[in-house]
């Protein structure tokens, strides 16, 4: 008799916790789902094509620095940010670039479009999740398996 009573209490407490957890996780899911455009830190050049009124709107655009596009002209950095679909954005930046900004490496630019040119106020380098020493790269290059630059 006593065991049955205890089991009932355990069941009651379990259901109580389950309801709390379910309510809370559902609300968090709904909030993050409806705010997914705001939670995303940057947009890619391809996403910009389907966006309206991007002129003079403060944006973050991310992608790779296009090969052979990084130039220093009249005290300003000029480069193109390109994504996997080969859509690109022309960027102008007049301050010092972070150390890790290189061609064919990740970058995030923050600023506005003025006359179809993205005038960046902040530039951040975005490194990927691959780590390897130079010797491993040399070895891969010898074997012809290296796909970077």
């Amino acid at each position, binding site marked *: 008799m006593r065991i049955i009573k205890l089991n009932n209490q355990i069941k009651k407490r379990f259901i109580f*916790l389950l309801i709390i957890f379910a309510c809370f996780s559902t609300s968090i899911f709904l909030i993050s789902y409806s705010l997914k455009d705001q939670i995303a830190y940057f947009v890619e050049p391809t996403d910009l094509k389907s966006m309206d009124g991007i002129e003079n709107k403060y944006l973050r655009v991310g992608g790779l620095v296009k090969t052979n596009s990084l130039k220093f002209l009249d005290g300003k950095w000029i480069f193109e940010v390109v994504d996997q679909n080969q859509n690109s954005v022309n960027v102008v930046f007049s301050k010092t670039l972070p150390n*890790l900004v290189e061609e064919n490496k990740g970058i995030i630019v923050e600023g506005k479009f003025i006359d179809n040119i993205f005038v960046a106020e902040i530039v951040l380098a975005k*490194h990927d999740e*691959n780590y390897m020493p130079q010797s491993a790269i040399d070895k891969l290059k010898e074997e012809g398996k290296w796909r970077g630059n």
Partner: protein
Amino acid sequence: MFAITPNTLSNFMISLSRYVILLSLVLISVSIFLIIFLENDYYQGISFKIMFIHVPTAWLSLAIFLVMGISSIIGLIFKSPTALTVARSLSPIGLIMSIIVLVTGSIWGNLTWGAYWVWDARLTSMLILTFIYLGHILLLHSFEHFQKADFAASILAIIGLVNLPIVKFSVDWWTTLHQESSVLRMGGPSMTNDYLITLLVSFFGIFMLTIFWFSNIFYIIVEKRKMERSILLND
């Protein structure tokens, strides 16, 4: 399983703790040696070596919260004082771990990204995790009776479990400045074996240190309660 009293667990952990701290010191020394002599990353240079503190503490801050949440569930459902005391003694460790993650992460971020802090999904959810740890500790100390404190703090730990998948998968669900996972990911680790081994040695060293630290906090809580009970009985 629920027959384990806090006293039994405390004695068991304390009897093991000298071996645990020895193993931890050996592993941490080996990992420091490995980190110093490891070749730099081809792209990030020496600054990537902060990863060997950042990543193990990040894993541990998530794992500690998972254990805290599960033991809170067991503690609340089965009224197990052992499970509730486990959750109580883990939260200060988790708080320190997550603060280490945030500090090392912002140093690494400044060296590579060019910013100490940005409000992307991974960094923000990690900050929320830190605040949940802080809230858990504050709740534990804001009641006169520890049973009430354990109840309130356990509810917070169970609710906080929702945040864990958000921290872990934020880099996959949304675009972030933070890079994606290198080790626990589909298709195997994206680093060379020498880096991976160093990372695992460093992780197990810090993990053993966490277990040692946990057994000490657990022991202190159990002994304190014993003392309080004996004072009450003598009155």
